[in-house]
């Protein structure tokens, strides 16, 4: 939303307020927020001038809370209502707010307004198996100095593979027919060759049979119309499959996102990674020897029963596979609702709350401004401390395994990896395949602890069982709600940082 539009809307509401619809009581503004976390932020800004009710009770889960008739009465008396986002709160809750809130009461969706206040928003991931690096093959440079023409052929041959299992590089054609370029299971030979024309760019599947570190050596030759093949380059690329890429020795650039091509450069006579992983929007060359391509446990899949895919191993076997297409990982137009797990986003919420309260209750302006200024400074200190605490955890142990997909912002803002979760949304039940994938993730990464949200502990039997089986710790992270130990946003975030440091920190 454009800020100008927000201001215009607020101005209209201010005009209404000035026409006698002043807030009730002795200058006290009644605010209803859907969750305890939002209510706490409102109290920090509103101080004694506001009365704040949270519709979801202490310890309740906003994903599933159904409002009661008494909630409707509370909402009907509100001067201002704050919700987070459609995808967080149960629909009945949003409906209760929209149906019962007085028509002249501002009804603010904080997550949806936050971007205009500088919040960093993450698109909602629909298919985490696609939230992985996208690795193709390319030929770059004209090769004119080597006599290359449009009719030339570049042969990219796998000559050596070191690693705990097998690698297959293949393409699936439009109607489902696989074409195998490299298959180490029957040994590597000249058959393990991809033929590419100049300027080629294609996308392939990379399937690894076991977790671990692999090193793949490729050799590129150029054949012009005169027939003689001339060597162009060789290079060795490392892949961290299911294990933390930071554990791979060497001066490595970890390619864990974005689009990368294993590229033959005819002009430079080099094989390198042509990647936008570190610099979104711009691709750059990173020498093969400096690259580790991350194949995370999100990429775990199962060999299908289709005999055309038997080259990948027996049906039902687990493989790690980087797919040839990654479109569709995000839900079109929707965002991850858990913005406050990044303290910088909570600051955006606070500013929206301040501006909304000032508009609804102009007489309280100075107080709202003073309290929000103080609170924003406290949030700056919080952000700094959380960052410092998490930075103290060794890089390869910053792995987050949780009950639901509620910590993407925490991970992105403070340098953690979302290694896995039981189900994306706490209202779902995990399938057998999801449980197996999570178990393998924890084993492969040697994750020292899993994290449970207090409000979801009743539904966390799956995670509890996995942790018991693996003999690892079960720790507590606050996600969508408080409990009796944490009654404030700042307390909750400090707990989260301390818990991460104590459960993941140290050495194995």
């Amino acid at each position, binding site marked *: 939303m*454009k800020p100008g*539009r927000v201001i215009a809307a607020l101005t209209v509401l201010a005009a209404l307020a000035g026409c006698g619809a002043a807030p009730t009581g002795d200058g006290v503004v009644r605010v209803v927020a859907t969750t305890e976390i939002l209510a706490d932020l409102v109290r920090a800004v509103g101080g004694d001038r506001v009365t704040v009710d949270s519709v979801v009770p202490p310890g309740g889960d906003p994903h599933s809370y159904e409002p009661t008739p008494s909630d409707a009465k509370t909402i009907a008396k509100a001067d201002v209502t704050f919700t987070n986002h459609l995808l967080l709160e149960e629909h009945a809750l949003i409906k209760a707010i*929209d149906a019962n809130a007085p028509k002249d009461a501002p009804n603010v969706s904080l997550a949806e307004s936050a971007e205009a206040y500088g919040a960093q928003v993450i698109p909602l991931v629909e298919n985490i198996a696609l939230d992985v690096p996208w690795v193709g093959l390319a030929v770059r440079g004209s090769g004119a100095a080597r006599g290359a023409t449009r009719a030339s052929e570049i042969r990219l041959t796998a000559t050596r593979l070191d690693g705990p299992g097998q690698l297959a590089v293949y393409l699936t*054609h439009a109607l*489902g027919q696989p074409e195998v370029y490299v298959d180490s299971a029957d040994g590597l030979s000249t058959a393990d060759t991809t033929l590419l*024309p100049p*300027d080629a760019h294609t996308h392939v599947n990379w399937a690894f049979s076991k977790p671990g570190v692999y090193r793949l050596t490729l050799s590129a030759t150029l054949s012009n119309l005169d027939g003689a093949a001339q060597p162009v380059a060789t290079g060795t690329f490392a892949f961290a499959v299911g294990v933390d890429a930071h554990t791979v020795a060497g001066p490595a650039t970890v390619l864990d996102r974005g689009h990368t091509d294993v590229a033959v450069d005819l002009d430079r006579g080099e094989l390198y990674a042509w990647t936008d992983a570190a610099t979104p929007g711009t691709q750059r060359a990173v020498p093969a020897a400096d690259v580790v391509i991350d194949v995370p446990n999100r990429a775990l899949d199962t060999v299908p029963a289709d005999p055309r*895919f038997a080259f990948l191993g027996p049906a039902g076997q687990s493989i790690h596979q980087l797919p040839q*297409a990654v*479109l569709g990982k995000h839900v079109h137009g929707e965002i991850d609702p858990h913005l406050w797990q990044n303290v910088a986003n909570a600051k955006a919420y606070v500013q929206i709350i301040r501006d909304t309260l000032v508009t609804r209750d102009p007489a309280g302006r100075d107080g709202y401004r003073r309290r929000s200024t103080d609170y924003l400074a406290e949030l700056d200190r919080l952000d700094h401390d959380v960052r410092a605490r998490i930075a103290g955890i060794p890089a390869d142990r910053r792995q987050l395994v949780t009950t639901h997909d509620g910590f993407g912002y925490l991970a992105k803002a403070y340098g953690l990896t979302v290694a896995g979760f039981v189900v994306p949304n706490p209202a779902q039940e995990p399938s057998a395949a999801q449980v197996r994938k999570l178990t393998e993730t924890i084993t492969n990464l040697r994750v020292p602890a899993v994290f449970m949200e207090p409000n979801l502990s009743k539904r966390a039997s799956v995670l509890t069982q996995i942790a018991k089986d693996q003999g690892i710790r079960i720790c507590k992270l606050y996600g969508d709600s408080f409990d009796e130990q944490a009654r404030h946003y700042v307390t909750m975030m400090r707990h989260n940082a301390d818990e991460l440091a104590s459960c993941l920190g140290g050495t194995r």
Partner: protein
Amino acid sequence: MTAARAVLRTVAVLSLLAGTSGPAVAAPTPAGGAVILAAGHADLGPRLVDGAWRIQVRDDTVRPPAWRGLDEIVVHAADATRAQVPATAEFAFLGTAGSDVWILPQVQRPDAVWLGWSTQDPTVATTIQREMTWRVHQVTGPGRFALFLNGNFGAPQVVFDSGKPMPQDSGVEADTHVHGNWVFTAPGAYRIDVEMTAASKAGERLSGRGTLRVHVGPGDPAAVFPPAPSPATNASTGPATAEGTHSSGPDRAWLWPAIGSGVLLALLTVWIVRRRIRRSEP
């Protein structure tokens, strides 16, 4: 995308559009021959041209690459691209097993147009918010049109399917370049009415609309698409606003102050139903 989701998405789109102005349309196609693209790489995507957002095709078959207006090209899926629908349930949406289809494939092959879509033009890549909406309003032609990607082990992920209610939407992230399989189930002339919409980082609504013309199978593509007025195709030689709109209307203003309006309630309902459906998907 399940059928149910496609329909719901459509409803959401209609609700969203209520109250916003549609793109300007209808300038005559200039006389003169269109470029026939029958092989090689090309990408469909928006660009800012003379201050207007326009959908164009970047033709990489010439050096240097040329950006062409949609009314300046015809894509040809020649008979070499013909294949048969396999006898697996997941491809049944293309027709009965063994029937002919013409495919411009997701991966490069020398005898077919390799047609992708992109938000990577420098005037677009870093100037729009997270995601562009790519909408197909209508497809006319002798058969069915579908655009899909191959997921793991080849499973089709359908982006558009003319056999389902229109319009249909897909999201394209900023600064991405994607290829898919463009499939046609009968030879002849197809017109795909497309619109690409995004919000600029400053909150302006950017939108362009035009008609992509595809000729499938034998025959002369130039003869099939005579230089005549085409309802949704806009002339690149017309005024700068003919194809693209560059309005400064609110991007998501409906999200907040419109509380209580029917539009928002409709959206709430639709979104929540969509959420429920997604939850229940595997």
